[in-house]
């Protein structure tokens, strides 16, 4: 089992007010699944993704990633888990604006302790070729389109061979046609064996996943496998 979350809760404190973003979420995800998480805005989808991605910690409950309880792990160890086991794809792309796309894809290799600049660049170049950007290596993010940016982000997410790819509304900033292209890449990756969890509020896009978890008010409302 890749992921097991048990009664996951997250409470934000804003002065005297407490916001219960997650109120007790439980599910399991096997390696190789393609899961879409849907739900209205403010229902806690991003909060859940942050915890699944080890960017944040639950207030209560347990999170086991590949059998390891990461709800009790802190800071630098979490950074290491993010680097080795998780690949992020964000709605806002989140590329480093001053670096070339090749350098951007190198970043996880640098923090992962992959030695040798040449080896890093070679791996990054291969990853970019896989997403069809082999001829844009030295462009900067502001010189390429949104769809291309998201491909760079996917190449970057894949570079360290993570066990899990997390995508929070990856098509949210793209037009429908480009969004479909990006979805094709994700489907292809899933076919190749990658585990993908994707947040979306687009029913059509959710329909391309093999399992849909619906969240409402910080709770799992529906969890169904689609044919």
């Amino acid at each position: 089992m890749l992921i097991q979350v048990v009664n996951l809760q997250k409470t934000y404190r804003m002065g005297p007010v407490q916001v219960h973003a997650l109120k007790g979420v439980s599910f399991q995800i096997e390696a190789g699944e393609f899961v879409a998480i849907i739900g209205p805005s403010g229902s806690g989808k991003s909060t859940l993704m942050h915890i699944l991605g080890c960017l944040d910690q639950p207030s209560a409950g347990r999170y086991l990633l590949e059998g390891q309880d990461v709800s009790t792990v802190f800071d630098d160890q979490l950074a290491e888990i993010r680097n080795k086991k998780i690949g992020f794809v964000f709605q806002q792309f989140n590329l480093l604006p001053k670096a070339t796309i090749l350098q951007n894809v190198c970043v996880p290799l640098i923090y992962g302790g992959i030695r040798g600049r040449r080896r890093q660049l070679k791996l990054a170049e291969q990853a970019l070729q896989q997403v069809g950007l082999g001829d844009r290596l030295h462009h900067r993010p502001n010189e390429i389109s949104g769809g291309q940016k998201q491909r760079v982000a996917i190449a970057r997410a894949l570079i360290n061979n993570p066990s899990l790819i997390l995508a929070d509304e990856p098509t949210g900033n793209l037009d429908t046609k480009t969004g479909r292209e990006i979805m094709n890449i994700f489907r292809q990756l899933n076919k190749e064996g990658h585990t993908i969890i994707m947040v979306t509020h687009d029913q059509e896009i959710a329909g391309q996943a093999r399992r849909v978890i619906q969240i409402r008010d910080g709770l799992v409302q529906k969890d169904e496998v689609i044919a």
Partner: protein
Amino acid sequence: MIWEILRMAVDSLTVNKLRSFLSMLGIIIGVGAVIAIVSVGSGARMQVTNEISQLGSNLITISPGIRRGRGGRISITAADVFTMELAEQLQQNCPSVERIMPNVQTSGLLIAGGNNYQTQVIGVTPIYQQIYNFYPARGQFITDEHEVNATNVMVLGSGLAKELFPDTDPLGQTVKLFVRNRHLLFVVVGVMEEKGTGAWGNIENQAFIPASVLMKKINNRKYVSGYTAQAVSAAAAKAAVGEIEYFLTRYLGDPEKFRVFSQEQLLETISQVTGTLSLMLGGIAGISLLVGGIGIMNIMLVSVTERTREIGIRKALGAKRRHILAQFIIEALAMSGFGGLLGIGLGWLGAAGVAKLGGWPLVVTHSSVLVAFSFSLLVGLFFGIYPARKASRLDPVIALSYE
């Protein structure tokens, strides 16, 4: 890894060159000041020390005491106590004193043919030559006979000789001295050797006449303004000062009436003064470095805020605290180090300019360059740590959602 971080630091500094430069300004000025001050200080001291030791470190000056005048004003009492006879008595009673000479001088206008020149006229005895190690190049100096008979003879400094006699041989010529509405005629008997410009005016343009002539025929006073004594050796200078003080206190009955000091004491005083000055200016330089450090901290804090999102991205991709810490500290170090290098260049230029004006050698020691540079790095490290720590402790989720 370290190279990547270094390159990143340089990249981020070159993105906003003007801002980086302005942030470095404090360091540049501070380091520049340190280099310039140390260099100018040691150059000037070297110059003064050279001149004094050329004169001989066994010289002793005896001058009137300083009296507090009315209202706390300081006035030099022209103590009418220093006579030629007293000089002889000092000579006899102070075994460590080799020679002693009265100090008596005036200034007047010298005229020879169509040329004239306003200058210092020094009353001397023959021992002036040995005391100051200064001899005539041509002709002769003032002799004992001239002194005893108060003969109107004159020896010219080499520069003065050229001023008064540009085309003719000055030896045997007549020079007219105008002083206090009177004039006297002198025969030139010698021209001094060239010694170059000294610390105390241009001795090349002075005229020398017998002390007796100056006292009897010009000043009409039997008192001189002081004495210059020479100890038997440099080692005996201290003993000579003691003997002179002891004798004069008994003879004049009042230790406030005179002052005695050796060249060595003068040297000490000078190095004390320059030391204090260096310390003061060094303090200013230190404050400037501090301000420079605060400038760097300020810009680093701005940079951390501006790059919050970048920090969030890096953390999401697996950067640990120490990676972010190193990135920002190296950026601060690059800024302060580069500022330090610019400052060293600036200080060097400044010191070279001042040395040229002051006519002393340019002294920039390796140690002062090294100290200034390491100090600027230290300032960068010290003031870079806080912003870097702040960056490394950012929460990744909050940093990622920063607009």
